[in-house]
């Protein structure tokens, strides 16, 4: 039991110390990055998380050309 309590203290102590150190380092890192980016770049838009558009180019092209085609034929018909 004695050993058990030691273990709880040791374990939770380590977990807390590690995460507190991580909080400190992370905070410092963020501060540094933010001040660096404020100084050297124009205030950056937070880049959206790797959110490349999921529409393949070929499809976009197809959609757009379909659209243009519609537009033209609609116009043409109207123009008649």
């Amino acid at each position, binding site marked *: 039991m004695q050993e058990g309590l030691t273990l*709880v203290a040791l374990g939770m102590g380590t977990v*807390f110390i590690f995460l*507190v150190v991580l*909080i400190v*380092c*992370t905070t410092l890192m963020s501060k540094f*990055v933010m001040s660096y980016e404020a100084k050297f770049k124009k205030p950056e838009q937070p880049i959206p998380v790797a959110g490349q558009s999921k529409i393949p180019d070929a499809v976009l092209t197809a959609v757009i050309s379909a659209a243009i085609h519609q537009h033209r034929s609609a116009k043409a018909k109207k123009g008649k």
Partner: protein
Amino acid sequence: MENVLNLVYGSGIANISLGQALMLAVGLLLLFLAIKKGFEPLLLVPIGFGAILSNIPVAGLAESAVSQALHYGSDEVIAAINQALGGVSYYEASATAQMAAKEIAHHANYADGILYLFYSVGLTTGAFPLIIFMGVGAMTDFGPLLANPKTLLLGAAAQFGIFVTLIGAIALQFSGQEAAAIGIIGGADGPTAIYVATKLAPHLLGAIAVAAYSYMALVPMIQPPIMKLFTSKEEREIKMTQLRPVSQTEKILFPIVLLLLVALLLPDAAPLLGMFCFGNLMKESGVVDRLSDTTQNALINVVTIFLGLSVGSKLQASQFLQFDTLKILSLGIVAFGIGTACGVLMAKLMNKLSGTPINPLIGSAGVSAVPMAARVSNKVGLEANPQNFLLMHAMGPNVAGVIGSAVAAGVLLKYFGS
């Protein structure tokens, strides 16, 4: 005629033990829970199916060649193997004796079962859980955590359940190593639990993995009553301030900072957190998208299938149908409960001490069980105040819980590992 009898005597019905029949039922139950009830199906379908496969009588899918030869071999084969092993069990025998025993089994036409093979290639080496952890890293967004790093404390507090359960397990006559592997169920993180169990108590792996994934699936039922017990309605209604935007540079640097801290402070957590950070860096760096995509899809899917089957191979009747399994299942849920409570209490404390308001409901997400626990925080929050969206705020402690339990795993591996 003799041949017909051989077939009949070799059939499953003629050889099934009560334990195997029960375990077939357990496998079916896991499949039912996974498919009809939606309990963590990505793991419980392979684990449940693996459980059935491992308990097919005579087939020996989850047994080594030597083990099959000892169970189903002729008297001469059994005698020869026992002689080669020198009277002790296979795992106590010397490497040379093991090699001789294998040779006899192979000559008698026994081969390692396919699930045993997956287990020994992927689990005893630690490769499967570590690769899964890499994939999880590649799917994790640390943005909410970076916007509010003090929520890391919630991920620390929620690990309390691990250590309390460990003591409980020791009190219930488990050895230190076994108790540590059982405690980690409270970490609410599948690959971490499997990795630790494989290292410290492989004979309990089946029960521990089933407990971990079942309780993770049950988070929406386990957590809310505990969350409500420890919070008042006013606390649950607390609105939190909008999270600041986080730059890509911060997201790239975070896994590196975390990795360096692990390297300097707790090297025993390096396998788990190292692979995790690697996956995350691949994702955030933005320069290796094709590697990151494959890690998040084909690779993690393939490994999940084989990990599940391997874990299922540890659900053999002889290992699983023990009173110990019931104890493990009970201890596991206690660990979950304590972790949830400590997360909530820590959040209450932080709300008291901190300048900015913190809704205590996000504390429970610190157990990890990503992303289920964060969704539960959000749902209970919405019940108290339909305008209160806690999801993003709960994602911080939620991923912090993954780090927290990996750190706890490092401590346990250090202490009990060697």
